[in-house]
């Protein structure tokens, strides 16, 4: 034991060096996980278009992306829309129009949700706007849930309205449920309402009846409505 004790004392210096080494590794790892700058992301995103679209379209998309960056808007949704168009063999002009429309909607969503809205929130906000939710309703959602990340509430709202729920009723229902339930419960609420709507339950009843208790989350997200039930209304053009 005495030998062990002497060895331990003798190794204190070595131990200190190892301590600093380990802390350096930990800090370096943490820094490596820090998000890259917006410019770097934009460049990387545009590079992803190289083999997917024509050089001319890439240049035009780059200009739109510059506008987005200048306005403090994310580039990701623009690149995503470009890739979607390319995969669906849309012509360059149509893709450009769709990307411009996305930029416009991102601006509206950001104005409605506030300057601090994340890319995910803006994307969900655009989906809600395109489903027919008004910018004022988005602002109302933000004011009602000022400290909450709105990605899931907005996504559920967009899906509900797309499925045929009246905008005002759906917005109120989402706010009410989001104020007392977590994202998983809110998602379950949206699914339950979608099932009810597809089954012919009146929207008023469907949106006010199911109010799920907290903690009903399961390990697997069932994301759709029953297969035998058709959508309540056709998709909006």
């Amino acid at each position, binding site marked *: 034991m005495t030998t062990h004790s002497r060895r331990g004392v003798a190794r204190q210096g070595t131990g200190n060096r*190892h301590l600093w080494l*380990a802390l350096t590794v930990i800090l370096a*790892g943490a820094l490596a996980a820090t998000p890259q700058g917006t410019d770097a992301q934009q460049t990387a995103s545009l590079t992803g278009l190289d083999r997917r679209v024509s050089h001319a379209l890439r240049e035009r998309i780059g200009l739109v992306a510059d506008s987005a960056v200048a306005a403090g808007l994310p580039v990701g949704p623009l690149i995503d829309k470009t890739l979607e168009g390319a*995969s669906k063999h849309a012509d360059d002009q149509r893709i450009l129009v769709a990307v411009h429309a996305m930029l416009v909607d991102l601006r509206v969503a950001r104005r409605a949700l506030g300057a601090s809205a994340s890319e995910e929130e803006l994307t*969900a906000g655009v989906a809600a706007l395109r489903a027919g939710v008004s910018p004022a309703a988005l602002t109302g959602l933000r004011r009602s849930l000022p400290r909450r990340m709105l990605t*899931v509430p907005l996504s559920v709202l967009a899906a509900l309205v797309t499925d045929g729920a009246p905008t005002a009723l759906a917005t109120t229902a989402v706010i009410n449920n989001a104020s007392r339930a977590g994202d998983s419960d809110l998602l379950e609420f949206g699914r339950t309402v979608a099932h009810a709507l597809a089954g012919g339950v009146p929207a008023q009843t469907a949106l006010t009846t199911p109010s799920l208790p907290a903690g009903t989350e399961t390990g*697997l997200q069932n*994301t759709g409505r029953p297969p035998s039930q058709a959508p309540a209304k056709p*998709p909006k053009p």
Partner: protein
Amino acid sequence: MTVVAPVAYAQTGVTTAARGETHPGTQVLSSAGHGGALGVTTGPLTIDGYSTAHASTLFSDVWKTSESFTARAEAGLSRFETGHLAGYGDIYTRVRLASSSVALLSWQTDASGGVYRGHRSSEYLTGAFRLENVGAGNRLWLATGFGGAYDASSYGTANVTLGAAAQQKDVIATGAVNLVHARSTYDEVTGRLAWAPDEGVFPVRIHVEISGGARSGNTLGAHTRWAAISGTARLTGTSALVLAHGTAPSDPERATPGLAYTSVGLRLTFGGAAARVGAPTTSQIAPSERVADVMLSEVLVDGTRTLTIRAPARAQVEIMADFTSWSAVPMVRTGADAWTVRVLVRSGIHRLNMRMDGGEWGPIPVLPTAADGFGGSASLLVVH
């Protein structure tokens, strides 16, 4: 690629599942995007028969996932003190690169190194490669590793591991057989049962693991049989309490000693999605003439999720979505009409299309559908 844990790992009580052994559903930390965790544990420790009055561990890991790869770096150190022993017990680092692709066959490569300083001195450096076959709720993997260690003298190490994991509801059983050469040749059999009940069963989300193993052949050091139990309770979205008790064998590949431990720890995560202690479960699915259902699992250990579509295709189902960069991705048949694919998908609303047997691309009927701006439509998938 043995599951023998260095001192710091064993003390965390999270065991190998949480630090990257890819078993479906046992993951507690990873998420899409990037993030990290920092934790501390403390408790009494017995190393090769020497009891410490106090041992503490600081550990950290960071990860970053993309559509193609998952990268992960871990580091940690332990310190223990008694009247007889004083110094650092274990310092380790590990870097992992793994495919996070949608392929049925995934790969993973590791490099790790560490230093043990205590009643004796040792060092190690190892590298490992693993191929894993991913099925619906089960996995099979083959791994091999090589390295070197120093403990009074230098020697080379090598191992081969064959492992499998199967899931039934919220319980996952894992077993592995390891053949190891490190100064001598021996074999090990290890097993683990992990239970992660759904949210709502208990006031907080918990994850419990029971693990053990046995070694035969020309073994070295203490604990040729070992067992441990650990529990993780998620206190908030970013913090978890970790309790652990058990024994761990000596590890000739890393020249670390056998130990017995009891520890309590706190683990904090940052970045990415909130820490989850959950397991994907099977679900009753209604039959249908066409697409019957769409389901998405919890986040798996590599940050991906399993997307399942019930569709009566004869030979092929493909999807393309914003989370595949709108590239067509084939799904794998995992049942009579069940098709799955592993995807990296963040919380929010996503748009996707699918096609069966090389037919036309279109929306998935059971999901809400919106115009795509190109004369067609896309389905909306909401993810939390």
